[in-house]
């Protein structure tokens, strides 16, 4: 989804990487959470793990934890806003 948007932006609007902002298609910007979680995990685990040979495994686990936690949080907020608050007469 995002690569297609990048290609379209580059072809149509003369998009220049690192100068112009990326045109993120509506509803897909949240996918940037995955590389964000990955890179945060890389730096955090790089200073935390005693043995860097096991770093990739630690990074993958932490990335999955962040993504799953964010999805659960989003689902919880979704339930509160769309179901619980209306049920309470809000």
């Amino acid at each position: 989804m995002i690569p297609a948007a990048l290609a379209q932006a580059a072809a149509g609007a003369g998009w220049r990487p690192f100068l112009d902002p990326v045109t993120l298609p509506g509803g897909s910007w949240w996918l940037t959470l995955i590389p964000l979680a990955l890179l945060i995990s890389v730096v955090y685990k790089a200073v935390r793990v005693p043995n860097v040979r096991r770093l990739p495994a630690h990074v993958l686990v932490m990335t999955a934890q962040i993504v799953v936690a964010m999805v659960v949080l989003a689902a919880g907020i979704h339930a509160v806003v769309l179901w619980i608050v209306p049920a309470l007469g809000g």
Partner: protein
Amino acid sequence: MPADPPKDQLEPIAAVLAAVLPGLGHLSLGQPVRAAWVFVGVMGLFFGGIFIGGIDTIDRKEDFWWFTAQAGVGPVAFAVDRVNQSWVKIPDPDAEHGVRSPGPDESPRARKSLGHANEIGALWAAIAGMLNVICILDCLWHTPRPVGAGGSRRRRADTPAPGAQA
């Protein structure tokens, strides 16, 4: 009798090097693998943010509080801001600082970053800066790690050299 756990050591030079370039502090402590991961992670976040939001996401004057966090990356953040202020922005006598980010079709050099792209780009670069501050502190209060585990090649001061007589 179990060995004492390694004690933290104050390493101000390594902390300064880590502030100059992400990963350089750990490299000076003899941890090249750890330094490479720090460099890739921090620079990936910082330039990933610029990739998403454009160079306009690094703006010391218009986005001061974002830049406060982004500055943790070090001189690289100030260099990118300098390019943005002096090369990308356009003169505007009505603007607070005499220059402002160009709107769409106003400048051939770059377009103003707005909406989700701007927010996400600024967030990525800000997180890069804050994570590098953690790396600087890790270098400043350094705990020697075992050799062979990607840890420090520096020998602890209270550890005898290999082959030394007890």
